[in-house]
C-alpha cells in the first residue's frame, strides 16, 4: 500500500515546492524555475496515473511493433503487462507546451533585464498594484 502512495505524495510535494518558489522568491529566474517544477510535478502525476500493476513480470512500455503483432504470446504479454498509453501521449504534449512556455518566460526575463537592469522582482515595479 505504502509504496503505491509515496510517488503521489512526492508529486504533491513537488507541486507545493513550485508554488512556494513562485509565491515567495524575489528572483525572476527562481520564479521561472518554480513554474518549471510545477510543470514537471504535473507531468509526473500523469505518468503515475497511467501506471498499471503488471500481472506477470515487469511493467513494459505500451509500444506495438509489427513483431509484436505477429506473435500471439507477445500480444498477450503486452495486454497484461503494458502500462496505459494514453497518459503518456498526454505527457508528451504537455512537455512540448511546457517547453515553449518556459522558453517564452526566459525570453521575457532577458528583456526585463535589459529594461530594468535587474532580476529582482521587488525592483521591477513600474506598474502600480
Amino acid at each position, binding site marked *: 500500500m505504502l509504496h503505491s502512495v509515496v510517488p503521489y505524495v512526492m508529486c504533491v510535494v513537488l*507541486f507545493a515546492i*513550485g*508554488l512556494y518558489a*513562485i509565491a515567495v522568491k524575489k528572483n*525572476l529566474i527562481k*520564479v*521561472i524555475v518554480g*513554474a518549471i517544477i*510545477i*510543470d514537471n*510535478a*504535473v507531468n509526473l*502525476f*500523469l505518468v503515475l*496515473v497511467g501506471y*498499471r*500493476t503488471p*500481472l506477470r513480470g515487469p511493467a513494459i512500455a505500451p509500444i506495438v511493433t509489427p513483431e509484436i503483432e505477429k506473435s500471439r504470446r507477445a500480444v*498477450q504479454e503486452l*495486454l*497484461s503487462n503494458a502500462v496505459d498509453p*494514453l*497518459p503518456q501521449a*498526454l505527457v508528451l*504534449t*504537455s512537455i512540448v*507546451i511546457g517547453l*515553449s*512556455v518556459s522558453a*517564452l*518566460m526566459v525570453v*521575457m*526575463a532577458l*528583456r*526585463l533585464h535589459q*529594461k*530594468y537592469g535587474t532580476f529582482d522582482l521587488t525592483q*521591477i*515595479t*513600474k*506598474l502600480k498594484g
Partner: protein
Amino acid sequence: MEHLLPLLVLIPLGAAFLIPMANLIGGRRGTRASEVIALLAVAALVAVSLATFAYGPAPAVWIGGYRGASELLGVTGGAASAELAGPGGTSVRGVLVEQVVAESAAARAGLRVGDVITAWAARKPDQEPAAERESQPLHSINQLRRENAALEPGGQLVLQVVREGKAMQLVVTGGKSVTGIAMFSDGLTRLLVVMISVVSFAAVLFSLSYMRPYTKLYLYYSPLMLMIAGMNGVVVSGDLFNIYVFLEVAAMASYALVGFGVEAEELEASFKYLVLSAVASGFILLGIGIVYSLRGTLNLAQIADFTRFAAPNDALWLAVGFFIAGFGLKAAMVPFHAWLPDAHPSAPAPVSAMLSGLLIKTSGVYVLARLTFNVLGVSTAVAYVLMTMGVLSMLVGVFLAVGQWDFKRMLAYSSISQVGYVMLALGVGAEVLARQEAVTQRWSALAFLAIFAGLFHLINHAAFKSLLFLASGSVVYRTGTRDLRELGGMGQKMPWTSFFARIGALSISGIPPFNAFFSKLLIVIAVVWSGHWILGAVTVFVSFLTLLTFTKAQRYLIEGEVPARFADIKESPLPMQLAMGILAAACVLLGVLVPFHMGTLIAPAAQALFGQIQGYAAAVFGG
C-alpha cells in the same frame, strides 16, 4: 454542416502560418499582405459562424473514431485487481464488483455486487460464440469500461466471473461508444463562436490603423490569429485534453500579444500574467489527470455518462477544486484576479478588447460552466463557490474601478466586476438545479432564467467592453495618453469616437434601451426569486457603482474643456470608426431586438447548460 466545425480552428490556424510566410516572400509588401490575410481570415470566420447558426443543431464530429449511441457499462468496483477468495477456499486474482447500476448493460448481463471478475474477452458481432479470442486477465474496472467503449456496435464482452465460490461466464451486450476525439457544437458553442468571430473581426479592422506605428506587424497578426484559433478550439472541442491544449495555444499567443510593445511596463505585465497563467495550467492539468484516473476517458460526454451513475467520490472533489482554481485564475475571478488589471491595459487596444471581451470568457467562464453543468454535474457546494466568487468579483472589481484615473485600467477592473455578474448568475442557476425541488416547473424555470441571464450578460459584456477598449485605443492613438485627468473635450475633437464611447458607457451602466439593462435586470430578478435577497441587493448596488464609474469616465473624457496641447487633434481613421461602429451596433441591437434574437441566439445556449449531463451526453451521441 458538421464539416464547418474544423474550419473554425483551421482557418485562423492557416492564417497564422500564412502571415509569416507572406512576409518572408513579400518583403516590403509583406505588412500589407499580413493585414489582408488576417482580415480575410476573420471575415471567413464570421461567415462560418453565421452558417453554423443557419444550419442549427449538428451532430458531433469524431476525428479518428466512429460515433454511435453510448451505453454505460454500469458497474463500479475495485481500482486494481487483487487477491480475492475463489472457489473451494482458494484465492483468485480479479476485480471485485462493488456496485451495479439498475437497468445498465452490466445488470442486464446478470452481474451482481460481490462478484469477482477474473478475465474478459471481446466478441465481434459476426463471430460464432466459440470463436472468440482467448480471455485476458482484468486489471481494473476502468479497463473494462475502456474495452466496453471500444466495442463495435453489437459486440459483446464475455466475462469470467467468480460468484460465491463458483466460476461462471456472463455476456455483456451493447457496449457502443467512441474512440475518437470529438468536436461538438450545441447552442452554447454557437453563441460563443459568433461572439468570438464578430469581436475578432472588429479588432482586426481596428488594428489596420491602430497598429501602423508599430514595426514587424506579422509578429502581431500571427499570434492574434493563433489566439482566435485557440479560443475557437476550446469552445468546439468535446474532449478534456483538447480543451487544455487549445487553452494553452490561446494563452501562449496572448502572452506574446500583451508584451508586444516590449516596453518595460508591458514586459512586466506580460511576465506576471505568464507566471500566474502557468500555475493555472498546472492546476487544470492536475484536475484532468484525476478525472482520467477516475473515469478512464477524456471524452466530455462519456465522463458525463459515468457521472450520471457513479457514486460521488472524494478524489473527484479534489479535481473540481483544481478546476475551480485553474479556471478561476484564467477568468480572473476575485481571489485570483491580480494579473488582469496589469495585463489587459498593457496590451495594444485591439488585443485588450479581445482579452477582456473574449479570452477570459472562453478559457475561464465557458469551460467552468461546461464542466459544472454538463460534465461533472451541479452540486450545492460548487454552486455556492461560484456564487461567492461572482459576488466578490463584482464588489472588488467595481470598488477598484471607480477610483481609477487610467481609463484602460478602469475598464480592466470593470471587466472583473462584469464577469462576476455572469458567474453569479450561473452559480444561482446551478444552486437552484441542485435543489431537490428543482424538478417542479416553477424552480426549473427559475434555473433556466438564471442561466439565460448569465449567458446574455456574457455576450453583452463582450460587445460593450470591446467597444470601450477600442474607444480608449482610438483616444490613445490621437492623444498618446489614457490618463483621464489629462484628457477632456473629446466630444468636440473626436465626435464619432465619443459617440461610440458613450454608447458603450451607457450600455455597461445598464441604461434601458441598451443591451446590459435587460441582462442585469434578468440577473437581479433571478437572484431575488431564488431567495438570495442580500445578493440581489448587492447586484443592484454594484450596478449603481458601475453607473458612477462610467459617468466619471464620460465626464472626464467626453465633456469639459479641450486641453491646449490637444487643440489640433483630428478624428481617428475610418477603419477604427467602422470597428467601433460594428460593436456599437451590436450593443444597440442586442438590447432593442431582445424579443427577436433571444429565441435563436441565447435560449439554445441556456438550454445546452440547462440540459445538464443527460442533455449533453444525449446531444453528443445523437439520441
